[in-house]
């Protein structure tokens, strides 16, 4: 999907000198992603695998023309890194970090509104596996070999469930246009609806797989959008049918606190909006095949 990410997108990695960041940057470069810079305050002038490291996002953008950023920074400074990216002219940012305080994300979202719509950064995550456009570019930590290039868009809160979906599709000879992780946190950069709007305009995407879970209003918001505006077929799987109420199930956002937030309610609402809901996680692939 060329709106978020393609083979030519110039990518920077914030936090590039960390162990995990280096491992995944190498993976991304091997895949063909155009990584042009790293940003680590205080390490400007160093290189990682020949990639120049800068002290600030603004410098990196000025020197390399970086347009997208992967934030691989620990929780205490991750929100700050996202805001720096927004201020530095980055157009698309993916934040992998798990553990950012919720109110930090409230402040990040508010900060991003500082910029007029045309200049505003798009953020996906935090607490996600990233975004991949198979055959073009990888901005994240997913195992790239499980993705075939194709016409199914994937958007989901869970990284590993997203891998299940991609692997099942590959088994059936079906490929993915772009897979976007929106992450498991209660306050996130983009909702299901935000990504569906992008898929709606993407000629390469013929159908969408939506992977949701308990907690939060975004599946319901997506259902209304799908019912009223989205023309392409959507298949969904909602995790947590057996999750107890009031307990946080791993993801900070996987918490049933209100009506309409349980898995069964979401399944009902999505079905009523014309979405095919896979009844168990092992038939996500075949359910998608049936709507193509």
């Amino acid at each position, binding site marked *: 999907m060329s709106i978020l990410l393609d083979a030519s997108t110039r990518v920077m990695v914030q936090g590039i000198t960390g162990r995990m960041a280096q491992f995944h940057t190498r993976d991304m470069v091997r895949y063909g992603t155009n990584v042009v810079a790293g940003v680590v305050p205080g390490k400007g002038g160093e290189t990682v695998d020949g990639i120049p490291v800068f002290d600030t996002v603004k410098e990196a953008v000025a020197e390399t023309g970086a347009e997208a950023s992967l934030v691989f920074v620990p929780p205490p400074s991750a929100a700050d890194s996202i805001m720096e990216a927004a201020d530095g002219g980055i157009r698309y940012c993916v934040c992998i970090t798990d553990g950012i305080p*919720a109110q930090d994300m409230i402040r990040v979202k508010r900060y991003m509104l500082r910029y007029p719509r045309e200049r505003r950064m798009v953020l996906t995550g935090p607490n996600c596996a990233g975004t991949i456009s198979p055959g073009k570019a990888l901005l994240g930590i997913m195992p790239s070999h499980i993705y075939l290039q194709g016409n199914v868009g994937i958007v989901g809160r869970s990284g590993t469930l997203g891998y299940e979906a991609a692997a099942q599709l590959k088994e059936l000879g079906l490929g993915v246009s772009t897979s976007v992780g929106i992450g498991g946190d209660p306050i996130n950069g983009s909702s299901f609806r935000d990504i569906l709007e992008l898929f709606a305009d993407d000629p390469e995407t013929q159908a969408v797989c939506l*992977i949701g879970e308990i907690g939060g209003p975004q599946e319901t918001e997506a259902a209304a959008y799908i019912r009223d505006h989205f023309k392409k077929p959507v298949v969904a799987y909602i995790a947590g049918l057996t999750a107890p109420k009031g307990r946080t199930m791993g993801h900070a956002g996987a918490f049933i606190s209100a009506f309409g937030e349980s898995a069964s309610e979401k399944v009902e609402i999505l079905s009523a909006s014309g979405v095919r809901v896979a009844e168990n996680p092992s038939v996500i692939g075949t359910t998608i095949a049936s709507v193509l």
Partner: protein
Amino acid sequence: MDIHEYQAKEILARFGVGIPQGALAYSPEQAAYRAREIGGEGWVVKAQVHAGGRGKAGGIRVCKNDVEILDATNRMFGQRLITHQTGPEGRGIYRVYVEAAVPIAREIYLGFVLDRSSQRIMIVASNEGGMEIEDISATRPDSIIRATVEPAAGLPEFQAREIAFKLGIEAGLTQAMVRTLQGCYRAFRDLDATMVEINPLVVTSDHRILALDAKMTFDTNALFRHPQIAELRDKSQEDPRESLAADRGLNYVGLAGNIGCIVNGAGLAMATMDTIKLAGGEPANFLDIGGGATPERCARAFNLVTSDSNVQAILVNIFAGINRCDWVAEGVVHALRETPVNMPVVVRLAGTNVEEGQKILAQSGLPLIRATTLAEAAERVVQAWKADVAGNQRVFA
């Protein structure tokens, strides 16, 4: 992270919220002494447990004298309080809060939450104080006032006044209500809470606004920057399996079934629980080993699950991205060699280094049942569990 009522009141009082006079007691005699210190003619004795619904369960008693206080607290200390929120195991009562009884003219519901639709802190208030918010929502939804706070500005006085006027707060108490609202908001914001609930907030007949009950929940992701809040954790109020897990850096929720689960990724872990249920079994737990789990971490997770006496079969379901199947396999083999278990173990590996992982499992010589898909893994573990349980019963018969 949850805290006790007395701790929440202490915090909110520091932020300018009015609370009745009160003091903590660790024994019946101490409770009687506290009441004398507080003075007055009536006291409310409250069990300090991390759960709502205490009143109906006998955890809140109004007392008029020493004898009643000693009697009430004697019944509470050391008991497990079982409310509609605790489950059958209840919560242990080790502390009691003695509070001055106040003359109540009116009860208000006041809550602060993270609203995920607007991505803001939201104030929820209603004149139907004393009822649970779910009940107010169901029976008197028109009474609920909602307001979101602009993070760039905080809660300005005019917005707090608006809420006070909508609640019909008497003119002389508007400022007190504004202080209460701003105090709660600032506590929520400055301490990284995820929930502040005062139910009821009372207007007394002697014209004060006081929080009669207070609950605060904190963002675990933010505890690293609030060590004094982290200090308030009370393990006596937690499921011991979960305390054990949290202290070892494992993401774990204890459930009631007998099929133990070890999975990577919260969504996949929930989906695994769902699939086990579909196959006719009941999960004993949720456990997410997270990304980049070392063999040592996998072994720890394995030991944690097997230490649960409810567990009669185990399913390890790993789809490795940032994780590695060989590390997981090493961890499982190590754990089983150190502490052999007498129950079926099913392992499903997929993703990064899957062949290396399968090889390690095969060469271990351990009686592991292997599966390639999630569906197969769930089917196999439930069947093996049923056969194992039936076999054991036959042996005893």
